[in-house]
């Protein structure tokens, strides 16, 4: 019966109900989108790293797993690595950030192709002129580029010569020498990728590298991919916590406001309930339940909105952002909205519970 009253009340002021739920839902979407982006982007980096086809990665000393560490591996090291036993192919890359989450990667086309199995061109072909850039399909879609169009970055105009299938390391490729010179990193690499001759030699090669290249970070690909996770990337967790905190607070404000007006507007109804013998606890419980419904409806709406957000990202910025749907976080986000809503309903509910019935029932 209480629930019937709760639903009837919510239906009675349905516009307010919908708006409050949506406002709560947006918080849920915010959390889930941030989480989905964190997971999605990291997952995507892992996938693309796999796409290189390497078995081992060499990173400069002191670099973090993610993040664009500067190029400071001397190129001579690549030649040295190539001569080590069981090394089938080794290729170096230079990565240069171009703003936001985006970067351009310099590759040595021959050895990179040998290792990764080569690009699959959807349009055009490899770069031949010093002003040409190869991009992947997502970047092309995001920036509405076709072969022959010009893209601007690093204070220059680049002619798109080829569009390739996504999934191989990066979204934009330049010849490595060109990029090194342009970014004042001549002779410097960001990363070395190594393919071993036989998989059974992997551990031997890694052990060898560790001995020969003290200080360098040597990972097997599997190890590297497993390290790219929300737990290992500094800043992601605190960031998510901040978003959760903001969500609780905003949810609190939204529900507080909604319930507070509801209580003011319903003084008479609350008086009636009391005249019928309702206890303060029952009056409180009506309002708390309304808040719970708002939070639950809002959470469902918020979860659905994350699909909309993902669609928008895939449609408009597939080259910069990747969002996955993380159902594991649905209960957490719902819990967050419930918490904000209950906190918000507490004071209005308490006010209603101790409201004087007589004043409300008096005729004028």
């Amino acid at each position, binding site marked *: *019966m*209480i629930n*019937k*009253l709760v639903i*009837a*009340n919510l*239906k*009675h002021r349905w516009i307010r109900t919908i708006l409050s739920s949506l406002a709560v839902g947006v918080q849920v979407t915010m959390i889930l989108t941030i989480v989905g982006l964190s997971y999605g982007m990291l997952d995507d980096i892992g996938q693309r790293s796999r796409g290189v086809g390497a078995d081992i990665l060499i990173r400069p000393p002191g670099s973090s797993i993610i993040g664009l560490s500067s190029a400071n591996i001397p190129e001579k090291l690549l030649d040295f690595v190539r001569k080590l036993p069981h090394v089938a192919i080794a290729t170096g890359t230079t990565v240069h950030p171009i703003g936001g989450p985006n970067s351009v990667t310099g590759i040595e086309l021959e050895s990179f192709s040998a290792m990764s199995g080569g690009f699959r061109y959807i349009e055009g072909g490899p770069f031949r002129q010093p002003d040409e850039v190869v991009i992947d399909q997502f970047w092309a879609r995001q920036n509405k580029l076709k072969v022959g169009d010009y893209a601007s970055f690093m204070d220059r105009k680049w002619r798109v010569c080829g569009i390739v299938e996504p999934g191989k390391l990066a979204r934009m490729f330049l010849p490595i020498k060109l990029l090194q010179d342009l970014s004042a990193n001549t002779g410097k690499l960001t990363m070395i990728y190594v393919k071993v001759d036989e998989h059974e030699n992997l551990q031997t090669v890694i052990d060898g590298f560790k001995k020969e290249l003290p200080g360098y970070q040597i990972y097997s690909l599997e190890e590297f991919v497993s390290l790219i996770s929300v737990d290992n990337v500094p800043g992601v967790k605190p960031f998510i916590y901040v978003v959760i905190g903001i969500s609780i607070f905003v949810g609190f404000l939204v529900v507080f406001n909604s319930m507070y007006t509801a209580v003011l507007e319903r003084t*008479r*109804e609350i*008086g*009636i*309930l*009391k*005249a*019928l*013998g*309702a*206890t303060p606890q*029952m009056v409180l419980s009506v309002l708390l339940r309304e808040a719970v419904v708002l939070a639950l409806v809002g959470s469902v709406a918020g979860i659905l909105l994350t699909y909309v957000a993902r669609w928008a990202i895939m449609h408009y910025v597939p080259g910069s952002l990747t969002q996955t749907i993380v159902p594991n976080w649905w209960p957490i986000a719902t819990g967050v909205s419930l918490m904000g809503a209950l906190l918000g309903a507490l004071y209005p509910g308490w006010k209603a519970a101790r409201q004087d*019935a*007589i004043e409300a*029932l*008096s*005729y004028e």
Partner: protein
Amino acid sequence: MSETPKPLIEVTGLTKTYHMGEVEVRALRGVDLKVRKGEFIAICGPSGSGKSTLFYVLGGLASATTGSVLIDGHDLSNMSDGERTQIRRDLVGFVFQRYNLLPTLSAMDNISMAQFIAGKPQHTEGWFKRSLEMLGVGHRLGHKPRSLSGGEQQRIAIARAIVNQPALLLADEPTGNLDTENSEVVLKLLRDLNERLGQTILMITHNPEAAAFAHRIIHMRDGRIV
């Protein structure tokens, strides 16, 4: 079992003072009242004479300032808010001038809500059905208060007030908002409830014709019975 059973209501030396900030309003200034089970009493008096306040105290919505209030042997004057809520729930039904139905619930749900709050099973048979038939609102139960006439709303409010078979029905100007025709219907209903079901009723009214339906008329002025 004594020859003269204890009265249902026994009020002695009741005063009630409202505090509005600095200002004190002495709404009841020493009321003595006895009501036997099965009586139908009309309370008349000018506006502001303390009639509603007396009802709020009898119904346990307000506490007495001094004096004693016995309802069915329970002394309300030294009860906590929670205990008075319980007495109200178990022993008292209210009917107001402004009907005071819950606007978001249907007529039926308004009645069910009273049963729910009282913790009574929400049965719809027997006495319940008979009383609804008596009130003549059986066919309007699915409607929201908004789409009911004033007379219908007041009859639903009466149904809600008596559904838990309270010892005492308190009706505060129940016909104050109704036209003559509907007033007549409501007053006859109250009389029927009293005569056929033995319902004890206290009714506040301004209208002498309405008061004529009662067995006994009590006049109030300046917080006293005169």
